[in-house]
């Protein structure tokens, strides 16, 4: 993941002096790092809640009874691939290769959308099998956690599409590829959280 750009290699920051900030990291990027670190706590609390409640079914069906690991593996893979395309988008913008950059942005957003489609399908399937939001503590915790993650992915998609529109209007060029990098930070974070969720929630079997 990209961190502070060393001033010497900083070729496209003609708009502001890299020495302008004390850390050498731009305000925007530093703010994103801080924001993402607070998000760790948010997801930490939600994941802990689920882990505490995962076996509390109140006599009803549990999320762990319904997990379809192959299906979720595929959608997880899709999301993981979107991180790769995000990297490709950033590198294209870094090279000022706007056409590729735009294309990779679009692919990233599409992969995110596919993941969201998978989540919508999963929720529907679970609901039909009797796992409603209010069924039991385990269900409430599961839907809240994955729903929160889904909301984060959706916001990421909106940001990616905004970048795409801006690039099409010519407002996003290699010169401000840092914006792409910042959105990329967010996107990688959301992916990472999902990898964690997938491992801890889906793959580790209930006691």
């Amino acid at each position, binding site marked *: 993941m990209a961190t502070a750009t060393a001033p010497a290699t900083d070729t496209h920051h003609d708009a502001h002096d890299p020495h302008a900030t004390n850390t050498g990291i731009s305000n925007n990027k530093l703010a994103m790092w801080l924001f993402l670190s*607070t998000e760790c706590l*948010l997801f930490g609390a939600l994941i802990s809640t689920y882990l505490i409640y995962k076996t*509390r079914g109140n006599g009803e069906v549990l999320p762990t009874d319904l997990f379809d690991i192959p299906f979720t593996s595929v959608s997880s893979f899709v999301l993981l691939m979107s991180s790769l395309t995000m990297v490709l988008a950033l590198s294209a913008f870094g090279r000022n290769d706007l056409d590729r950059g735009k294309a990779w942005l679009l692919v990233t957003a599409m992969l995110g959308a596919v993941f969201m489609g998978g989540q919508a399908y999963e929720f529907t399937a679970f609901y039909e099998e009797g796992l409603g939001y209010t069924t039991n503590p385990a269900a409430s915790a599961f839907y809240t956690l994955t729903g929160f993650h889904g909301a984060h992915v959706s916001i990421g998609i909106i940001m990616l599409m905004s970048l795409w529109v801006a690039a099409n209007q010519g407002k996003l060029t290699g010169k401000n590829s840092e914006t792409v990098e910042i959105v990329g930070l967010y996107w990688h974070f959301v992916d990472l959280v999902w990898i964690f969720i997938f491992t801890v929630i889906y793959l580790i079997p209930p006691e």
Partner: protein
Amino acid sequence: MAIIEEPLALTSGEQHAERPLGVLTRPQANGSWKDWVSTVDHKKIGIMYGVAAMFFFLLGGLEALLIRTQLAFPESGFLSADVYNQIFTMHGVTMIFLFVMPFAAAFANYLIPLQIGARDVAFPRLNALSFWVWLSGAIFLNTSWIVGGGGADCGWFCYSPNSGITFSPTNGVDFYAIGLLITGIASLVSAVNLAVTCLNMRAPGMSLFRMPVLTWMLLVTQFLLAFALPVITVALLLLLFDRQFDSQFFDPEAGADPLLWQHLFWIFGHPEVYIIILPSFGIISEVIPAFSRKPIFGYSFMVFSGIAIGFMGWGVWAHHMFVSGIGPISVFAFSMATMFIAVPTGVKILNWLATMWGGKLHFSTAMLFAVGTVTMFTIGGLSGVTHSLAPADTQQTDTYYIVAHFHYVIFGGGVLGLFAGVYFWWPKVFGHLLNERRGKIHFWTMLIGFNLTFGPMHVLGLQGMSRRINTYSSGFGFEFWNLVATIGSYILGASVLYFLWNVYKSKKEAPNLPAPGPDPWDARSLEWSIPSPTPEHNFDEIPVVESQDDWWFRKYNIEDDGSVVRISSAEDAAQKGDAVGVHLPSPSFWPLVLAIGLPLIGYGVIFNLWLCVVGGLLTGGAIYAWVLEPVDDPDADGHGHDDHHDGDDPDGELATVGAAGDDTEGEG
């Protein structure tokens, strides 16, 4: 999302040729009230935080007086149990979230840029957003008195399942949850903003370990906020989902565990204590050196003990749960962890004393409040040690002994320190001093009222008086000290009114008195190197910092024999505030508009989901407009300075302000 905003090219003097979509402009400052609602100036925002917080201080104080009036006599019928429960809940919520935190935010906003030598915070528009979102959340919270069927009646800690819909069927708790979520967003945005400011916007030479202790403590506070608020956010959302959407997080009948709430709440709630107290620690670390004529003793110990407190604050939350049945091993571990937080705290107290030791102590009002803070906090800290003894805590917890303890910490250690700051920085903010004689009367009545109110509560608690009881029977020995506490609370209330009188009179008298000058206290940090009141652009020229207490060393030199020699008067050394051509970020209305949308969403969740749509459109629209308005308006005049010299900033100092390019992804 300001993701398409390009950092502003102020340094090169290029004008922003293009306005995105060409439809939106930034408002311009013209001296009317609109300046205030559209301002992005950290100083105006700081003042607004202070004024609004003071209003909520009066409200919370009124609630406190109602509580004390009810408890003045046994079996009193002054308030019904229902109203009493709402009032003590709202008293706690108001004082913590709507007074102490924003009042500390007032200092953070106003002083961090000045103390590190910056022209504004990293994200000026986000800063305005923080204030307006906080204010809208605060107002939202209090509208529950009118439209919510009364205030929340669950206590500020709002333990489940008593906070559930079964046991609290009015909308008070919904207002509590949503109101604190909204103010939480504000604090989170502000925390990220101010932390970035401290880390990134320091003047040349202002290394982290030359930052004043106040800025350090505020930085630690921002990190605590940034990591504590997400946890309470989750807790409040789960509570809200339980109440509004029938989820099953806290219903024991469905197999949920009420301890989940307690853990989430206190993982936030204990760092919150340090969020409240550290700004005050920072303030008195500025005041005591100034009025001892000595540097702060053990700067690095002060800083590191603050950081240590910040870290250790995360490992002690369950000491609020010693009797909840979490098991003897957990209780033991948290008991030990809690004890050792006394070490860095003790270091701070001893360092303040060492700063005073041998100094020339001038007991100005600010100094009185600072010394009052040290002593009252010591009492609160020592009674805190007695709670860390888990066995003893099983007797003390949920009694008035605890009420006494945390008021000595939060009021004695926190609020008194904030008042020290008010008296100390008042001339810097408003250009005139607060009257010292009246200030001293304010201090002594406040100190006496405070001790009369909360001192007796130690006795009441040890005599077995429970907390949160709306009445007590005669015969348990509670009568006398309750009456004393009530009398004390009225003295305390009177002292606050007297403070406001002092503010009013001092303002009236100010034109007939000599101006305080840039540095009325012969102080040490950079904010005293510029005129009072602070010019809109803060610094004519960003100072180049050569040492800790850089400003003091511009006035004095320490000779080889250790003696102090004046090398310049403050007036000569200070900047004149007459710079022209300083280009500042343009005002914007969108933070306010965005902030208005959030409570509408809140009302929507409670009453009618269509309101959510309205609020959502307003918020979403404001975000879009925010993105689409130019980072700066090329047509805008310099604010109060007739500058059209965007290019005359050869040092590139302004890039730090200009490059702010606000970023709203933070709200994602």
